[in-house]
């Protein structure tokens, strides 16, 4: 049995103040199933299952659901769709009355985007204008629990690089729990997806990297 790298707390249990606690009669009470880990004297709570709440600066994978007059509605695995305005896609002027935006990005296409504006999680704006952000061609998306993405990416992307190298897949993990994967060979895709699912299931155990290496070698 592997060792947990923290202590599990459940909703209703008294905790030291953390991200997922509320105050009641001078006590702090956990709102969520979470893992409290003490690293370098710092206490950190990780929700073990969660909804994705976008923050400005997050890198996300999105699936286009609707093409509107002035941009696209994009599913980023959150409680509301994000909006991708035309100006955050192309630099040149587009006459929206004469352009069919679905020719630029169509429904069901996948993008790698940055969150640029969030107002109370109701208005969420994303951009693919700068950096590596773009429309992704080929491959496809799988979803994982957003709370586990950090472990799937690993420190300095170590875990993602490991899976990518061992399976020969292109992988981009969005902070929102959507992960884009592409490979010419089905076998590689299967290996990569199963490794990601394995991390998702076992993310709260210690020694995960060794477990993943062993897992990939066995398969």
């Amino acid at each position: 049995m592997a060792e947990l790298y923290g202590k599990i707390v459940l909703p209703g249990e008294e905790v030291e103040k953390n991200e997922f606690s509320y105050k009641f009669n001078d006590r702090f009470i956990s709102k969520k199933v979470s893992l409290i880990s003490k690293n370098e004297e710092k206490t950190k709570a990780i929700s073990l299952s969660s909804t994705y709440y976008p923050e400005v600066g997050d890198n996300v994978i999105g699936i286009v659901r609707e093409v509107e007059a002035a941009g696209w509605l994009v599913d980023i695995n959150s409680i509301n769709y994000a909006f991708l305005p035309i100006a955050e896609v192309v630099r040149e002027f587009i006459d929206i009355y004469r352009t069919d935006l679905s020719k630029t990005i169509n429904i069901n296409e996948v993008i790698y985007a940055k969150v640029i504006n969030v107002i109370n999680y109701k208005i969420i704006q994303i951009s693919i204008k700068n950096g590596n952000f773009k429309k992704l061609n080929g491959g496809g998306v799988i979803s994982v629990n957003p709370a586990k993405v950090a472990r799937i990416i690993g420190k300095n992307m170590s875990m993602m690089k490991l899976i990518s190298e061992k399976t020969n897949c292109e992988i981009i993990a969005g902070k929102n729990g959507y992960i884009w994967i592409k490979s010419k060979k089905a076998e590689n895709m299967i290996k990569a997806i199963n490794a990601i699912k394995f991390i998702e299931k076992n993310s709260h155990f210690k020694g995960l990297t060794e477990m993943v290496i062993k897992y990939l070698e066995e398969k």
Partner: protein
Amino acid sequence: MIDERIVLQLLKEGKRLDNRSFLEYRKIEIEKDIIPKAEGSASVKLGNTLVIAGVKVELAQPFPDTPNEGILVVNAEFPPIAHPTFEPGPPNEYAIELARLVDRIIRESKMIELDKLFIEDGKVYGIFVDIHIISNDGNLLDASTLASIAALHSTKIPKYENNSLIRNEFIGNLPVRYKPTYVTIGKINDSYILDLTYDEEQVINDLIAFGIRDDEKIVAVQKLRGKFKFNEIEKLLDLAIDKSKEIRKYL
């Protein structure tokens, strides 16, 4: 969630995410007599698909054209608990199709000796099979049929006395004799594929189901989706007959 694009890519290369071969079923687990108040019941787990079938035996009026036979009613519910795309409300066309297909395989295989369910003039035993989908990860027809047949084979007939049924006293088992099963076959790039997961079902265009009885007689057929070539039916039948033997062993 797994993107259809990924599933399609895998299938086109002859691969499945769970590393099964195309003709391999997921692990089948059947449990009988799980609902204390049902006269017969069974749950079937097929990978992540979970179906419960319950049989209630009630007093009923016979149908006018078969006054000396018991009646059979099959109903299926797709409650929203089972899948994010299932919506609350009355059964949709897929739930009704599934119920009718299970009804057909039970009826046409003559697995229940309905003539033994006569009580007295105008009064017979009614056999109500209710299929409840709990978790949908595809191949609901094969799973629901397994659950229904297993439940019927575990059904006991309550005693009839003074115009009513005595719920905790039984006169014997429901008279049943066969274990018919459906084998649903999908087609992709001219390859046949069995026991589709929900994600796989979304990308398969051609789907057909064969109901086979223990003696290899074909008792029900439904082309569920798409099209098949005239001269491939024999191959499909051979596959269905072959596989029906394998999954019948779990009953």
